[in-house]
């Protein structure tokens, strides 16, 4: 039995003997050894460090994005229906053409101002007519005298008629005068851009490069359903 086993195991012994396999013997052991040696003495790669840097970069990007979107502070958009403005009068001698149509401006005032005026507001009948440009000083004086509560800032004295300087008159806060926009006096209406349309749809105020876009105020008399686009340099 053991003889049979031995004879049966002969082929197994042959399989373990490298001298029986000339074809299977390694040809270039030195090259293989070099590869093993290189692998054994290779410096370990800092995989953890790489991940650390990647995580740090991601964190910075996330923080930057959050900062950009969260610090987009809300702008104090001017509401068109209730403007606050400072009226500046320039010297009459240089502004003949602008004050040449007093009746028109009077009409505009009468149209826009509500009928329930407070005490001390300008009565339209009391406004003097401007016939000559030389009478402008007296007109201003009369307006000032009739509006005691108005805040008047003037660099020119009333007596100094020869050198009239620009004077800023702040109207009463309750008085609502209609603001005449560029659009209303014939300026071409700008085509709403994609952002404007978006703002119109969602009622959000946007700022695009140099222009401010205002969402429509529903319920106001001046609301015509259009977005108002004003350049930043605009005084209104």
């Amino acid at each position, binding site marked *: 039995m053991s003889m049979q086993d031995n*004879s*049966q195991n002969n082929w197994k012994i042959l*399989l373990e003997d490298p001298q029986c396999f000339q074809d299977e013997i*390694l040809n270039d*052991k030195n090259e*293989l*050894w070099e590869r*093993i040696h290189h692998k054994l003495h290779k410096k370990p790669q800092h995989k953890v460090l790489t991940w650390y840097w990647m995580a740090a970069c991601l964190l910075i990007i996330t923080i930057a994005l959050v900062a950009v979107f969260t610090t987009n502070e809300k702008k104090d958009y001017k509401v068109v229906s209730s403007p606050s403005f400072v009226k500046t009068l320039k010297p009459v001698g240089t502004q003949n053409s602008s004050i040449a149509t007093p009746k028109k401006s009077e009409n505009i005032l009468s149209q826009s101002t509500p009928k329930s005026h407070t005490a001390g507001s300008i009565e339209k009948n009391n406004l003097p007519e401007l016939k000559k440009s030389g009478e402008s000083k007296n007109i201003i004086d009369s307006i000032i005298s009739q509006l005691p509560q108005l805040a008047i800032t003037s660099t020119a004295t009333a007596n100094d008629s020869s050198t009239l300087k620009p004077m800023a008159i702040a109207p009463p806060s309750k008085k609502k005068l209609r603001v005449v926009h560029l659009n209303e006096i014939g300026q071409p209406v700008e085509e709403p851009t994609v952002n404007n349309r978006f703002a119109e749809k969602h009622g959000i105020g946007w700022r695009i490069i140099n222009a401010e876009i205002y969402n429509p105020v529903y319920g106001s008399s001046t609301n015509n359903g259009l977005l108002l686009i004003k350049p930043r340099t605009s005084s209104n």
Partner: protein
Amino acid sequence: MDISELTREAKKGSAAAQKCLFDLLSDKMMLVCRRYVKSYEDSEEILLDGFYKFFKNLSSFNYHGEASVYAWLKKIMINECLMFLRSKHSFIIATEQQPEEIPLPGDALNKLSASEILNLIIELPVGYRTVFNLHVIEGFTHKEISRMLNIAEGTSKSQLNKAKLLLQKNLIKNDNEYARQQSK
């Protein structure tokens, strides 16, 4: 220097001793890899990985004679081969009915040369070849093989029997070809 001294020096980190060990054992280990993996290039890669692991873990190895070094290295190589085969092939084979055990054609194999036997084994399908190598040549039991390959014990047995059947067929084919060549 004998293997015990080389192992001691290699443990200390001597590159020269490591190279001597590699030169001494690489051919034998290459044969082990060739039995499991058909491709020569893949066998070489497995050999490199096996020796790399051997040298890397040599510090934890307890020397118990020359045979222990050889056995440990062989075990590493077999594990590497199985890992490679697992990554390339699936050993999940449906359990089949346990067939009757087929005797190994030992006498017929003894008539063949070493390279012919190796070729016969290499030509077997992966599953048959792996189970045949593990059971017949390495001497693992079916229970151990089932654990190693994560297959059922019955599957291991059926794979072995199929491997033997195929070997017999191939041997008969070889005999016929040999007889035909002789007759010519």
